[in-house]
């Protein structure tokens, strides 16, 4: 079970969180003309990298905040966690 540092609550067990997928995906703006391909990429297509992955988690049984977690998909190492609106350099 992973141990995730919620930026609001501190170190918490994985079973308090739910997984939200790739955090780098950006929803196309509303009312914007976009191609089928762009839309499909947003809705369906995800990379499945081995290694560093920036992903969303929600601290469901805690503060209910969506947070960003930088995790290694192979080793589960967590490098850093961020608030949802935090800029990541």
């Amino acid at each position: 079970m992973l141990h995730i540092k919620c930026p609001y609550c501190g170190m918490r067990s994985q079973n308090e969180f739910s997984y939200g997928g790739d955090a780098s995906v950006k929803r196309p703006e509303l009312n914007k003309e976009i191609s089928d391909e762009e839309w499909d990429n947003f809705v369906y297509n995800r990379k499945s990298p081995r290694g560093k992955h920036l992903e969303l988690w929600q601290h469901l049984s805690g503060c209910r905040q969506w947070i960003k977690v930088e995790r290694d998909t192979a080793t589960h190492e967590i490098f850093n966690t961020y608030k949802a609106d935090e800029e990541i350099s």
Partner: protein
Amino acid sequence: MTQIFRLENGGLINRDKKLSFKFNGKTYYGYEGDTLASALIANGVHLVGRSFKYHRPRGFFGAGVDEPYAIVQLYRNNETEPNIKATEQELFEGLEAKSVNCWPSVNFDIGAINNFLKIFLPAGFYYKTFMWPKSFWYRIYEPFIRKAAGLGVASTKHDKERYEHKYEYCDLLIAGSGPSGLASAYAAAKNGARVILAEDKPRFGGSLLTSDVNIGNQSGKDWANGIIAELKEMPNVVVKNRSQVFGYYDHNMLVMSEKVSDHLPKTKKHHPKQRLWYIRAKEVLISSGSIERPIVFGNNDTPGVMLSSAAKEYLKVYGVLVGKNPLVFTNNDSGYETAIEFKKNGINPIILDSRVNPQSEIIDEAINLGIKIKFSYVVVAAQGYKKVRSADIAKISDNKKQLGTIENIKCDCICVSGFWTPTIHLASQSGNKTKFKEEIDAFVPGTSKQNETTLGAANGIFTLEETLKSSFTAGQDLSKKITNKDNKISFPNVVEKISSQHDKFWCVPLPKGKNYKRFLDFQNDVAVSDIEIALKEGYRSIEHVKRYTTLGMATDQGKTSNLNGLQLVSDIENKVVPAVGHTTFRPPYTPISIGAIVGREVGKHSKPTRKSPMHSWHEKNNAVFVDAGVWLRPRYYKQGNENLFEASKREAKNVRTNVGVCDVTTLGKIDIKGPDAAELLNRVYTNAWLKLPVGKARYGVMLREDGIVMDDGTTTRISENHYHMTTTTAQAANVLSHLEYYLQVVWPELNVNVVSTTEQWAGAAIAGPKSRKLLKKLFPNNDVSNEGLPFMGYKESELFGVKARIFRISFSGELAYEVNVESDNGQFMWEKIIELGQEFQVQPYGTEALSTLRIEMGHVAGSELDGRTISYDTSLEGLISKKKDFIGKRSLNREAFTSGDRQKIVGVVPLDKKTSIPEGSHLVRDAKAPLPNKKLGHISASCWSVEYDNPFSLAILKDGKNMIGEKLFVMSPLKNKVIPVEIVSSHYVDPKGERVRS
């Protein structure tokens, strides 16, 4: 004469407390502190079971967790448990055990015929033979295997024992209480670190209990007892025996199984049987020691052949002799320690040492004691069927290839020592890259991935002094980092005998003309010849060889067999062991009971139960409840001898003719506030929301981004920037997360807050033609006329002094209202409705009637919004705004979603107007068409229409739009039903929706 193999004195057992127990129906005696194994051996019982494949006789091989043979069916306090290791089960008064895997009995076993047919059962036998001919499988192989194979029998009764889970955090978790565990725990504890020290056996001390060493002028055992006593007194230390750390998971979380009551005849009141600990440790010290490795020779599975360290443990801990005429076969000095213990107790062992001319202190001691030693000698084969009677021995050439003349010597047990294998399972599970250590011919932990350090024998360090030094240092250094304290501990003086080099020799060659089975894996009956066949047939990867031969796949996970298997593969392949690599170690290290894994989450405790504030009223009024998610909802209110069908029909009919009241507290409720609340709703729902006036409700449908309907419900504008959203009971949690996601991640610029208020409001739906009259009675000071409170209107009011919200919304299709009050007033509201409704013949109705009412009205619910349907399919496309964008809109122009013959909701009526249609049935055009019969759609919900008094169903049907009036068949192979039906409109009752507006 009982316990004829028990010594007069000695051992750590309590001789003042004699215990009786039964094995295979016969009564024996042992002592408190015995294991079932030690007590049986004390009584001269060496035959305990039959092997898995060949049903060869099985005795005892080890004295603990590594035991591959002695697996029994245990009976305790009227319960039975399979696959218990006799070497781990502590004896208690009245214990009963039986052999497993033998039929009809341990002494006469039909399956042993496999032993004589063994030429037909080589590696891969199960894969190859049972493939052909196919008909043989069902008639012959399968029944035979079912009868003969398998281990114990699981109880089919409900397990009445209690199992607990515990979550714990600590600075250092130390797995194993041998010298390295004790030293590191002591040093860390002295530095103030929070320490958990776990020992799987009942006694602490590990190898110190049996080895002839001296620490700080005390025996190893006394030193260990002193340290444990001191640790137990320290507030920062938890010391646990009978506790096996069996799994090492991510982020330094380990799981430990504590056997709290298994050693007692009966679990004490308020105690669990077992406790599972989830431990998050800052640092983990693995002090799991090592397991002795066998040497492989002919018939080495005969009862009486066992590990030399086990023989020593039976002697020193239990005061039990495994034989009175022992032969010790060794390739290192450890066998000598066992021989010396025998000699000290008046037994004359013979030592066969495969080495040419080894020299060490302990060998000198054995010689001085007058023990007979034969160097360059090996055991070629054990003789005897149910117990060793003699051994064929021979001189072996220096290159270990040629055997000399075979001699036969009498013996009643063969104690084998093939050197030591570090127990690296936990380190390996943590992700440690293990490495092969040539000097000890075994794998040891390499680079740590997590915060884990392996100490002592588990790390391939076999001298006590080095073990203690490195363990004190590790405990000190690691705790210092955490507590910033640095308590120096003076290192005790250590006296031990230094061993000479072991012999790199683990498999005795076959003598000419003999084809003895030489076993590697004792539990799964994998022999040297099986590995040879696997390699001959082209299997190379050790993972493949493992699966093909089942080497190391038994319940002991190859604790005694893995390295010898690797050695053999590397010898045949002319590779070195590290190049072959070892198979992956996975948790659990030892089998864990299902009860412990499940813990207390059984039956009613498997999930929380939510009850509405009106629950006790429902109970008092004969409600029959149904699980709706985690909620308990009244399904119907039983009157007299009514069944479900009769009651729900009565309740639904009463709604259509008079007025009914339904507890709708379970509906999800979300409070939405903020200046951008309308904008959020406008983006979330498919229809327009910006112009909804204050005091009005609107029905809305929300999609996922892929265009599939997610949920529906009404949302009411309470005030300018305040909305009250309702969701279905099932989707309440998902919808809240969905809104939070868009507000926090996608559109953080929207100034809106959302919070669940499901539990804050109690809800009652008042439905039926007389509902307005009832409402007038409830709210006499309000204008609830059709003009004063029109359809989809909203009013805040007071219900006899209690704050109330009135929504004019309807799920039943009748004139209806929903009244919400704060939860604490729910019961009051409900009773008022019932009381004042008497004159209008009000009746409560449950979920079954609720379903009937919505189905015949064609209102969709969870069974139609099933995660596969879009708005069009459920006839909700009229709510899709063309003017604005919303979540999932861009997906709606996908080809499949716009095709002309797209599925759509329809109504289904049986032609005979009598036969009920099972939900989930398929709709087909031709009932007699050959299989697979093309499915046109499925029945999503069924009811008995109270309006027309005949069955009615909703279905999602291909090209449903153009199917009205068609005659089709409903097929339910599950219920063996074929029903001719007519397709009608899904709006079976009041298609124009006049009643709700009346």
